[in-house]
């Protein structure tokens, strides 16, 4: 019971933080790899593991994520582009999508605005595998 109580508090509090959006410290400063980490509960949620499970070729040689995914995945390639793929994975069927439900579905988990040029781009980080 106590556990559930705590969980709910945590949910309510994190709800608050997601509302505050960009005003709070960035929980995912390096984008993909700040969230796709080795342990979420008992699950290995790293991208190399997830991709292996869906039959993707090895991604061991990459260095910076998601920049190096772009070696094979073009950003503007019609329906199969990286943009479409990654957006759909994280936003499709919102009422059961974990990214929306558990992480509030914020664009800024992956993107940031460069306050010099005004261009919006992706956060990047070294691979965590």
């Amino acid at each position, binding site marked *: *019971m106590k556990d*559930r*109580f705590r969980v*709910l*508090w945590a*949910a*309510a509090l994190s*709800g*608050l933080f*997601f*509302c*505050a*959006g*960009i*005003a709070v410290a960035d929980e995912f400063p390096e984008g993909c790899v700040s969230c796709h980490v080795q342990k979420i509960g008992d699950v290995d949620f790293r991208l190399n593991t997830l991709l292996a499970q869906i039959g993707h070729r090895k991604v061991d040689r990459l260095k910076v994520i998601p920049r190096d995914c772009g070696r094979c995945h073009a950003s503007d390639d019609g329906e199969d582009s990286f*943009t*479409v*793929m990654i*957006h*759909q994975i994280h*936003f*499709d069927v919102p009422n059961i999508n974990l990214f929306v439900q558990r992480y*509030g*579905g*914020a*664009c*800024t988990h992956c*993107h940031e*605005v460069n*306050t010099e*040029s*005004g*261009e*919006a781009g992706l956060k990047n980080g070294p691979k965590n595998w």
Partner: protein
Amino acid sequence: MITRISRNRDRAFSTRNAVLFLLAALSMAWTGACLADDYPDGCVSCHVGDTPKPKSAYRLDLQLADLGHGKGGERTKEIPTGCFRCHASTGDGAAGKLGPYIHLIHFRGEKNPFLKKYGGDCSSCHQMDPNTWRAVAKSGPRNWEMTVGDTKIPD
């Protein structure tokens, strides 16, 4: 005795449940508040005021005039879609692309009222198109009347 204990337990259980329920409801309300779209038409859902004070978003025709922008902005019907006729998204229009100008205006400076008062949310201006999975800028009809000289021009 035994029944009394278990009844007490039941009662304790149901108060706890009530608290849990309340918390669950609260957190759902929060999520709801975040997910509900306060600015369905983007720019023109937020830029509604008639005066620059208090530091908040006022009508875009006035705001652009303050910046010394030409009348092209005021003449535009759909905001910001119509602005792209000069500010092409590709960057090869008559004027620079709109994204970087608009991002700088709303994100630069720690005291920026868009960050402080409005939460600095990308989704105030963008939405995900669930057919193409591309993010687009929301758009809506201008919320001012055109004037030529002193005459208002109806739409």
